């Protein structure tokens, strides 16, 4: 994992230097794509995020091609796309999707969607984000109350499992949100790092009662009974509300920090070892036998440009997978690469294999 990211970092730096020339070199192909897309007339998008409508407006303004975007959950879009492709009556052209494990085990192997990486960006986008193509990274972090604490009261994730913080971590419910299970899988992958962090904190090696230090951590975290939520808006509010004597810590998307002003919250980010949050990818895929394949490809391309990504990346805590694009000035780091390995990134295939077991592991230890 760490090696991958190092490679990605290097690739990214080189790509950044080359990218300006690359875009112009490909313009003939781009022109052809634009012409074909315009001939098709429209794009139908099933999307994981309602902001697709905003991106669609920009796309129509630029290319004159309307985007019919519908927000739906991954379960819904999977069901629809599978039915459409199987019945030969395909309506959707392109999907925006969160559930990477499901994508790589069901939709891609089943031939329901195709991975398309725009030619001119193939070198720019880090290899780890190319197959399946990531268009957006969203960062979740551990946050604390800046009114009560001058700096984060903990420095190591193992402290979350101490009695002092029992029932004082607020997070999304793993029974309802698959992103938490993906994070657990990444935690398992980081078992060695967690064991080292334990020793660093307590000065003695971790005594395992489970197969690895990752499971040991999840077990102790579950046993310390975090408060669980459906939506992370409330987590940020619970952590950041002013006037609290013993405010909790929270695990929520960094984007919530945009509400610090409007909701008068006192929120800060915890720099923890060995990880300080989660990096959650969102994917874009072209549907197999899409009625408007070129318009779909052009839209995928558009999402990886400054204006196409802006509906998401103009906010805190969201990054395009195209490292050349800017992000919100309030972000702790200007691009994904600089977060280094401080964020958990899960492996889709491994999550697909482990998620049932991990969910049960959580449930049985959370009693």
């Amino acid at each position: 994992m760490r090696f991958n990211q190092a490679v990605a970092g290097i690739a990214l730096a080189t790509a950044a230097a080359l990218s300006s020339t690359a875009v112009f070199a490909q313009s003939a192909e781009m022109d052809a794509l634009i012409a074909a897309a315009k001939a098709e007339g429209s794009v139908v998008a099933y999307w994981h995020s309602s902001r697709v409508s905003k991106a669609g407006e920009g796309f129509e303004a630029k290319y004159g091609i309307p985007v019919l975007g519908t927000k739906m959950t991954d379960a819904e879009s999977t069901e629809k796309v599978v039915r459409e492709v199987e019945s030969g009556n395909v309506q959707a052209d392109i999907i925006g999707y969160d559930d990477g494990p499901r994508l790589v085990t069901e939709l891609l192997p089943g031939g329901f969607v195709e991975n398309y990486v725009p030619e001119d960006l193939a070198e720019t986008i880090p290899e780890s984000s190319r197959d399946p193509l990531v268009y957006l990274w969203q960062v979740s972090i551990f946050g604390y109350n800046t009114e009560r604490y001058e700096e984060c009261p903990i420095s190591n994730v193992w402290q979350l499992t101490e009695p002092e913080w029992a029932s004082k971590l607020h997070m999304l419910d793993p029974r309802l949100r698959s992103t938490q299970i993906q994070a657990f899988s990444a935690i398992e992958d980081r078992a060695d790092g967690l064991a080292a962090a334990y020793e660093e904190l307590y000065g003695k090696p971790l005594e395992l009662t489970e197969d690895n230090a990752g499971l040991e951590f999840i077990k102790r975290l579950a046993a310390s009974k975090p408060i669980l939520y459906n939506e992370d808006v409330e987590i940020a509010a619970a952590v950041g509300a002013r006037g609290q004597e013993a405010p909790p810590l929270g695990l929520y998307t960094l984007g919530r920090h945009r509400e610090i002003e409007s909701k008068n919250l006192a929120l800060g980010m915890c720099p923890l070892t060995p990880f300080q949050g989660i990096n959650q990818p969102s994917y874009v895929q072209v549907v197999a036998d899409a009625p408007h394949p070129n318009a779909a490809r052009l839209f995928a391309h558009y999402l990886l440009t400054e204006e196409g990504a802006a509906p998401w990346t103009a906010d805190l805590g969201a990054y395009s997978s195209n490292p050349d694009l800017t992000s919100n000035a309030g972000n702790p780091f200007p691009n994904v690469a600089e977060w280094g390995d401080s964020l958990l990134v899960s492996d889709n295939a491994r999550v697909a294999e482990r998620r049932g077991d991990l969910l049960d592991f959580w449930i049985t230890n959370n009693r």
Partner: protein
Amino acid sequence: MTTTDRTTRPPLQARLRLLLSQLVSEPSYVIGAVLALALAYLVLAPMAAVLGSAVQMTRMDAVRAGASPGDLTFSYFQRVFTSPVAQDIFWTPLGNTMTVALFATALAVLFGLVLAMLVTSTNIWGRSILGFLLIIPYMLPSQALATAWITVFKNRRTGGSPGMLEALGLTPPDWLAYGPLPIVICLALSYFPFAFLLFSNALNKIDTQLEEAAVTLGARPHIVWRRILLPLLIPTTMSVLLLTVARTLGTFATPYVLGTPVGYTLLSTSLYSSLRSGAPGVAAVLAIVLGLFGVAMLLLDIWMVRNWQRFITVGGKGGKREPARLTLLARFPASAVAWGVFLIAAFGPLLVMFLSTIMREPGVFALSNFSLGYWTGGDGRPGVFNSPEILLSLYNSLSIAGSAAVICGVLGLAVGYAVVRLPGSWLSGFLRQVSFLPYLMPGMAFAAAFLTLFAVPRGPVPALYGSITLLILVMVVTYLPYASRSGISAMMQVGREPEEAGMVLGAGFFARITRILGPLQKTALVTAIILPFISGMKELSLVVMLVTPGTELLTTQSLRFLDYGHTQLANATILIIGVVVMLLVLLMQKVTKSSLAGGLGG
């Protein structure tokens, strides 16, 4: 006409010809058959679909297990009943559900009985207005009391704005803020009006001559109650118990709002989280369990109707009971109890919810803290009157519940017509029972069944999930019992004679319906429409799994607001529902010159 002579059967041809001529002149068979088919599809097919999805591999699980989607599997049953997580998914929630249903029902029946006794048979102060005030909790959506409770007792365990008590400096302990105790209290307070209505109704129907005879023979009032009135109330008590238990089993909003923060799960909330976490197979198994409870209730109901009928023969039209004149010493506490229940169950929650929507910071009673901001907008956010979500969901609620109610009313009368005109036939029995089944089916189970059936296209029926049609359909089926009951009893009162007179004068079927039956059944139609409309406006557990962005209703929108920590907007939404429903009830009482009790008549 339906009694065929069994001893000498005419030849088949003659019988068929007779049947055909009967069908032409008397379309009740056709109506009955069409209704039976439609009901079979809408009530029984969803259940079959749930059974199917409980034993068939989903695509996701098939990929993992190396099987193909739709393969037969018992893994979902194993997961629910015997796996290591069975305790968390099923057994603990089952125990919790039983506990909550038992205590909430007992409390609700007790409240209902005592209040009915006080209001119908004593001279407590304000007894006539209490008859209306005490059913207000029934007119509020089921999450009203739960959100009002949260507004007052919420503590630092959950985020968002603090609860009123906490804002005043008192931090309520977890056991008071969340979990079984508040769930039982809230459910009892929201379901006692049922018991109250049915007991009042029953008490008013008991022949007062029985009491007078006892009093003449020297029986004291408490002897009259213990030996005469209470035994006569046994059938009512049974049906109240049944209805209340059926409702508490399927209830979703209250345990969701008050149980989730402390991990107190009921079967309904476990079903919801199974579905949300992408385990439809597990959800189907849970729905089957809830459905079995429903079937058990239906069988119990049939058995009771058969066995307790003898008690009802007593119900003649006696004189109106003279209210017992309580001494001042007894009158004061008795009145206090009745008014106290009203204050706690209806006035208090409404006040709390209203207050929360006009205060900037909860618990600060300074004049400067009051503002209409949550209603009119301002402070950089939209208010109730201009929030696109609320306006959309208000429109959806009105149009969905409205169309469902109209369809329901018409269908209900049609069922009534078919059942009454085809007495004794198996078709009549089938219609009666199947149209009543949804009444006792826990809402969550029914919704899960509909979701399974209509999530994907099946034959000529397209995938309805995400459409308004699905919501209308599920409401029509679920509220049909109200409408068909009122339709059956209304049709009973109209003999065949007016219709036969019309036939003699050459009126066809449609002329008879529009010129004779229609005008006669105007009132019944209004009741058969308004009752489903009221239920539709306050429905949550039935629709919470079926709404999608764009088809949100007021009730689901208020839950969404609660999820996002906007307690004030959630409360405002519930108040809107309450006001609409109360207006409807008043309208109905004016039009039909009767009370809600007559229509509910469980």
